[in-house]
């Protein structure tokens, strides 16, 4: 009996060892990046790898901030991300609720057409949108990156899947009490959707923060650029400066990693939710 327990514990420990080991290998690139960003150029590639440099060299960060408008990039990226999250949460919840619970002519047909657009890759729309934004003088404005997010079929689908599960009686009761459709939505239904909304906030945060193709094409003013494109520009200009490159990458990654560490549970639950098919 005791032997059994011992071997079970042993198996548990060795399995944990394997999994944690593989997990650490997974994040080694991130650890190496942070470590290299604090090293002198000559030290960056020394083997065996010194994970903690003898002393923290900040020159790479100073270099990055002096040569490139990192601060602008941060503010721009934050602005775009906030707008993307806002659009997704507000407009997609509204539409998702309408498709799930409201009766109107064409409800199912419009929903079906919306979902069908999920098949069309972004690349198809990028050229005509570019022509359109040029026509309206919107090139180099952040709105060209975030405005298209007012329609997001995937987010509408996600929210609809949740709203379908809300009991009709609840909505009916609010109506009988004299609530308008808007108040019912805001004060009765939305509070129930907290976990779905959290999932959507997190998903759209990653969409906004990682926007790449749109800013690459629609924005060409250095100061107006976003982080994801900025870091690529940095790399192309300083091909041989590896320390500063790592500092730049760390600066771009750090905010996401911090947000992730704070809200990792919601992150993972949100992603899991997005994979459940309706």
């Amino acid at each position, binding site marked *: 009996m005791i032997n059994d327990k011992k071997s079970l514990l042993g198996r548990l420990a060795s399995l944990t060892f394997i999994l944690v080991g593989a997990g650490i290998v997974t994040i080694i690139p*991130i650890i190496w990046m942070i470590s290299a960003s604090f090293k002198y150029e000559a030290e960056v*590639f020394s083997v065996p790898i010194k994970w903690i440099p003898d002393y923290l060299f900040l020159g790479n960060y100073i270099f990055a901030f002096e040569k490139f408008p990192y601060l602008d990039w941060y503010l721009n990226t934050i602005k775009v991300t906030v707008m993307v999250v806002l659009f997704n949460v507000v407009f997609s919840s509204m*539409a998702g609720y309408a498709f799930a619970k*409201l009766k109107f002519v064409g409800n199912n047909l419009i929903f079906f057409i919306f979902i069908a657009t999920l098949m069309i890759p972004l690349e198809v729309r990028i050229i005509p*949108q570019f*022509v359109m934004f040029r026509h309206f003088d919107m090139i180099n404005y952040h709105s060209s990156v975030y405005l298209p997010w007012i329609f997001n079929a995937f987010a509408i689908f996600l929210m609809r899947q949740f709203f379908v599960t809300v009991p009709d009686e609840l909505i009916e009761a609010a109506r009988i009490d004299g609530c308008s459709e808007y108040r019912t939505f805001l004060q009765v239904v939305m509070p129930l959707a907290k976990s779905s909304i959290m999932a959507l906030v997190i998903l759209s945060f990653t969409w906004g*923060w990682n926007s790449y193709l749109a800013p690459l094409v629609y924005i060409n003013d250095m100061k107006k650029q976003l982080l994801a494109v900025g870091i690529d520009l940095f790399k192309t200009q300083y091909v041989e400066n590896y320390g500063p490159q790592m500092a730049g990458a760390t600066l771009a990654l750090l905010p996401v990693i911090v947000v992730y560490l704070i809200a990792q549970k919601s992150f993972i639950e949100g992603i899991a939710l997005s994979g459940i098919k309706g």
Partner: protein
Amino acid sequence: MKNKSLQKNLISYSFILPSLIGFLVFMVYPIVYSLVISLMDWNMFKGLPGSKFVGLKNYFSVFKNEYFIEGFKNNIKFTFMAIPLLLVVSLLLAVLLNRKVFARGFTRMLYFAPYIATITAAAVVFSVLFHPVFGPINGVLRSMGIDNPPQWIGSIKYALFTVALFWVWKNLGYCIVIYLAAMQSIPKSYYEAARIDGANSISQFLHITLPLISPTTFFLLVTNVILSLQIFPEMKVMTNGGPGTSTMSIVFHIYRTGFENFKMGYASAVTWVFFLIVISVTIVQWIGQKKWVKY
């Protein structure tokens, strides 16, 4: 009575109004416009009035363009390298994580971290890690006594594979999370019954877990194949399409011709050919699923 139902309809429509406007302006209009552009010898500066209608000429030149053909080949190679690796490794790790282990939450967090990392920043890191001369990967390999380690992103032979490694690393966490969610919804009683019948853990995996999560495998297969076909930022940052054309993808080709050479008529035609490729690949998978997906 009629007025009331009209009013009800209008209130309902007001809920979908913002999405509907977005749909018309940023979906319908661009799609129609894209078709128009693809039939033109498009003049970027003069727009529609300054462009000449050329019929299907752009579409014919797509299939004659060597860069497109290279890109298409690379896309196929990339998908075949990356997808099996991604699905097998994530399934394996999810199975292990689904067992009783210490610090499961912590470990899951480690695997998931790359998924939320900004693609371009992470790609910069990988391009340095896999640098053929200075990179720490080859540094470690050499210190282990391997004199001629692969040239990774510096060689035509390994560049695409290196990008595939990066792509798998980046998306592993997502697949693990989805697999775990699916595995946790399998009733425990199935496994208990199998154990009573004397089934070991391998046959439990083969006969219970694998068939029951096959819809999830299908979901991950379809979505990840589409994503892998759309690969572009990874290549732009890590290899810029090179060496030669060894890491040139179709989307890269669209970007180059459309936004570097400003041949937007031709590039639009490529986007539609690309769309047809994505749709056909997805349809083939839908047909194929009957053979192995158990609902």
